[in-house]
């Protein structure tokens, strides 16, 4: 498997970051955290972003410790998780052995997925391929993998969060919206598109726009361990968003 340069860079960074994500992953596999989304852990039972996944073939693109695939399996899906980081997959396999259930975990990039066309009903990502891969590579791959009527569902950072500064200057627009695509940070290379560009990319790949769920952090509660936003900000503006699109 030939990785793109950004994927190789991100792979190295995730090998380093994996220990930090081990315990949060374990808690979800262990059933201590119910199925929930993003940094504010909004419950799926409240958000209802997923369709009925029972008996569906799902692929999680950039699964990390694969806790979402474990949740999907417990909802009755037949998941597959793919990731390019050995350390993350090793943790996923450890938790799978400890807590179950079993499903395939494969070392592969969402930009070049070793599965045939039309193999899945749901292509899924929560802060996986959805931000770490180039959308002009991974969205066509996801569209190829989906069966007719299948759904692409992914969570990424909100647009307003990407163009504004970090706290304490989180209200300040500092990055341009037009032309946004690749963001090079010291510890990772991630990808974000504007609203119109996502819609254009979906349509070009035979995906119909179904929904854009913009996540509002509840007013009360603790801050997250991430320093790029605050609860107060994320209560007023969307720090995260979930796109849903359906294969024609």
């Amino acid at each position: 498997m030939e990785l793109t340069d950004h994927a190789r860079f991100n792979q190295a960074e995730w090998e380093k970051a994996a220990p930090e994500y081990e315990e949060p992953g374990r808690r979800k596999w262990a059933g201590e955290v119910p199925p929930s989304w993003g940094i504010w852990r909004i419950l799926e039972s409240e958000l209802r972003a997923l369709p009925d996944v029972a008996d569906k073939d799902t692929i999680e693109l950039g699964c990390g410790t694969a806790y979402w695939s474990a949740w999907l399996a417990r909802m009755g899906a037949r998941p597959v998780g793919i990731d390019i980081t050995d350390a993350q997959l090793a943790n996923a396999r450890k938790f799978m052995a400890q807590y179950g259930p079993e499903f395939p975990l494969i070392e592969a990039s969402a930009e070049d997925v070793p599965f045939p066309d039309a193999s899945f009903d749901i292509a899924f990502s929560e802060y996986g391929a959805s931000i770490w891969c180039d959308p002009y590579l991974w969205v066509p791959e996801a569209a190829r993998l989906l069966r007719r009527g299948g759904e692409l569902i992914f969570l990424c950072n909100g647009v307003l969060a990407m163009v504004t500064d970090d706290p304490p200057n989180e209200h300040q627009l500092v990055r341009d919206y037009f032309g946004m695509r690749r963001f090079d940070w010291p510890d990772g290379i991630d990808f974000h598109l504007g609203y119109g560009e996502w819609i254009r990319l979906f349509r070009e790949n035979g995906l119909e726009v179904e929904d854009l769920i913009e996540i509002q952090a509840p007013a009360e509660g603790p801050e997250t361990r991430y320093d790029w936003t605050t609860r107060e900000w994320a209560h007023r503006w969307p720090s995260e968003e979930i796109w849903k699109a359906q294969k024609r």
Partner: protein
Amino acid sequence: MTSSSDANRTFWDRQSDEYQERHRDFIGRPEPRWGTWQVPESELQVLGDVTGKDVLEVGCGAAQWGILLAQQGARMVGLDNSARQLEHARAAMGATGVDFPLVHAAAESIPLPDASVDVAFCDHGAIGSFADPLLVVPELARLLRPGGLLAFCHFTPFSWVCIGENDEVGDRLVLEYFGLHRWEDSDGSVHFQLPYGEWIRLFRRNGFVVERLVEIRPEEGAESTYLTADETAWARRWPLEEIWQVRKWS
């Protein structure tokens, strides 16, 4: 009529003469153009070929768009909530020798039959700006035939949350995004907006396929009789104006 359509009727009747005087030359050019920088439709290709189609302009003002589309072979109907705006439309139609029906009504309740329109569009008018989208989008879904096009140009939700105390867009987030819906200006007009996701859900609920969101980036130093040079400079970096293009399921 709802109270916002009453308020906006009063507002537009009052300011119509001044508006048409101020923008006449800018928006009265001989080919269809969109929005506050008057980007040509030939460049954006939103409406496509309107020849022989039943086209409704919702919030037609002085019918600058409608006259041009009628000349291209569209079967036009122009609708506006302001009688004074429609007087300007009649004068312009008389001057160009173009004639088509003008309807004086609020966009929330349009006196036309179900499935009678192929293209419903609006350029900074009732749809997306001056009428409640939660009422207007269902009304247009009723009027449009299967496969019919709904397109409208308006200011973006992004720009709404960046409007500062001087009523101009700035480089800071000010207004809360969640719950965007209705805003009353001190001049008496009432404006509407929704978060991006709410727009998409509204279209989908009413049987529309989302085809395209054109986010307009003006040329450097683009002219506008609506915006300041600072606002146009802002719009080179962030989306100020956009066109939704959605189509009724066929």
